């Protein structure tokens, strides 16, 4: 889960890391609680906000309303701006970059710092990678004092104790909340102490069960701010926890594995068809999952043909067939369905399908070809 900036800063502040005083703004009325000058920042889950022009400093109240209107009506990289933070400006001398994350190349947590913090950090990483200083933290021993002193020295930090305190707090949040990334950029070193001016935090969804209340609260908060109307398919898939990615075409797709799902899409594409979605049920799918998944994918009105691409490993084809047959009993068959079925218990599944008048093929290329042709005819 990617936290919005104000959520990330709240987690930092709870641990005692300084952040600027701020007010969340969802309409111009909220400006009453803001003192000027202030910095308005769009709360969208993407980077590059400064360059996109959705971080603005306002000197006085007069112009504020229209700026807030305008910002709340804007979109950044496909994300409509739903809320703003109005923050007290902080006087900055030095801007640092500080991040703690899991480096998936070497399977270790990594502390990364730079004295070239700010909006150009990605350029810095590309052009002058030596300005980004890295320290791997062995999970067998955790973060030690010398590692922090080494980074402080490289950054020429004077108040080493305050810096160490900050780093230890970041590492503690990382561990306690099952984060996969905590990034403070920039970390301002103004005359009176360190302040996190911007923060990005990713939490590990796979560990949500260890922090259920926190995850539920953060998610509810994000949902409340969401204005974009979701398609029925997206809503159903969220509710049913089904991995569904809309793709805009007219051939619906359901697979029982991620890899076969992706190759099916690639083959549809190569045959000149346009996939409507990606949808994978996962290895533990049963008949009921199949029914619910069909409901999700077929709730998209643009779907002209549905491909079901099954290669049973953990999934049992008799159960998949049962789900398909049940769905067809309960619903009017609105579009042609083309099925590929092989693998575990397919010798039982295929006859079940045939009995209810649905044909199943063994070959992936065959069903792709049939589906693409049918989609073109309709």
């Amino acid at each position, binding site marked *: 889960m990617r936290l919005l900036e104000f959520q990330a800063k709240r987690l930092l502040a709870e641990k005692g890391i300084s952040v600027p005083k701020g007010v969340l703004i969802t309409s111009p009325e909220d400006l009453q609680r803001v003192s000027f000058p202030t910095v308005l920042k769009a709360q969208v889950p993407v980077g590059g906000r400064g360059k996109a022009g959705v971080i603005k400093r306002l000197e006085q109240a007069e112009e504020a309303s229209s700026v807030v209107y305008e910002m709340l009506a804007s979109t950044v990289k496909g994300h409509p701006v739903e809320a703003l933070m109005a923050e007290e400006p902080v006087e900055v001398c030095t801007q640092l970059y500080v991040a703690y994350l899991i480096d998936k190349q070497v399977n270790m947590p990594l502390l990364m710092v730079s004295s070239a913090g700010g909006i150009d950090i990605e350029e810095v990483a590309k052009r002058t990678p030596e300005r980004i200083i890295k320290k791997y933290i062995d999970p067998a021993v955790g973060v030690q004092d010398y590692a922090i002193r080494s980074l402080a020295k490289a950054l020429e930090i004077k108040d080493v104790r305050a810096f160490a305190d900050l780093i230890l707090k970041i590492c503690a949040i990382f561990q306690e909340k099952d984060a996969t990334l905590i990034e403070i950029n920039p970390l301002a070193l103004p005359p009176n102490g360190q302040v996190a001016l911007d923060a990005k935090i990713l939490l590990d969804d796979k560990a949500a069960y260890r922090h259920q209340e926190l995850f539920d609260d953060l998610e509810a908060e994000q949902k409340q701010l969401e204005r974009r109307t979701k398609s029925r398919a997206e809503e159903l898939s969220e509710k049913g926890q089904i991995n569904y*990615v809309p793709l805009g075409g007219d051939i619906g797709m359901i697979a029982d594995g991620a890899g076969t799902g992706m190759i099916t899409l690639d083959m549809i594409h190569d045959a000149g068809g346009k996939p409507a979605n990606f949808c994978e049920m996962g*290895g533990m799918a049963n008949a009921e999952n199949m029914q619910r998944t069909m409901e999700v994918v077929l709730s998209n009105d643009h779907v002209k043909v549905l491909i079901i691409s099954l290669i049973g490993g953990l999934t049992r084809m008799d159960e998949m067939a049962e789900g398909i047959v049940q769905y067809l009993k309960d619903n009017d068959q609105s579009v042609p369905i083309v099925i590929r079925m092989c693998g575990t218990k397919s010798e039982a599944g295929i006859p079940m399908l045939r009995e209810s008048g649905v044909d199943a093929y063994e070959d992936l290329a065959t069903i792709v070809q049939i589906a693409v042709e049918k989609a073109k005819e309709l």
Partner: protein
Amino acid sequence: MAILIDENTRVLVQGATGSVGSFQTQIMQEYGTKIVAGVTPGKGGRKLHGILIYDLVEEAVQGQQVDAVISFVPARFAKDAAIEVIGSGIRLLVLTAEGIPEQDVLIVLRYAAIKGATVLGPDTPGVISPGKCKLGVHPHTMFMGGPVGIVSKSGSLSYEVGRVLTKNGVGQSTVVGIGGGPIWGLSQEAVLEMFEKDPETEVIVLLGEVGGRQEHDAARFISQYMNKPVIALIVGRTAPEGAQMGHAGAIIEGEEGTAASKIAALEKAGAMIAKSSLDIPELIKKIGA
């Protein structure tokens, strides 16, 4: 020979009495895998398909050799169970669980590195050396023995390719599923190195997908160290940036994660590129293996 497992591998099943563990244990046993023990806390002393169940791994390894473990322990308990296996000195652990918290995986992999154990997964279908041993959940009728080594992130894609090869009379030495990520124990690169050294393997099929940068590391390894021919199939060419395509690791974040960049890197490294599973038997014929 083959890699990782063969007809002599002695296997312990962790989480053997659950519904999946029990069903898969029976299938592996029928396939010929030498299963010598099962472990489920609290179920010690029972028998399952003629296999003795123990409460603890340390009890199961007493007085008998255990070479490998396949774990069907659910994600929430997987860290403890994995550390128990590694701590007992067993050298190969197959972690099938999907959704293990990332920090748990890091600790497991670090401990494995310290103890010299190999971890396959997590979120892996396992590994099969057709006709010899199966340590996984593969639909094994799709595979047969032969000279082609397969390494795949996706389980289902390795079944698909295995099926096409077998139908065309081309057998496989070992089929390795490294898992859906986003953190991997054994990497594509490490498996390529094993296949390069394995005298039974003549051609390698690398099955990759969008997300992460393992395929780039694999490409570097191929160009620098490999003499055997490699055929690569990278799926997810139509995947949009930022969308999760089933696997936790199959998400494009940045240029290196795209299928196009991986295909370009592998092609440059000298791998032959397949557009779909159907191209692979043709390419193998061309090589003359």
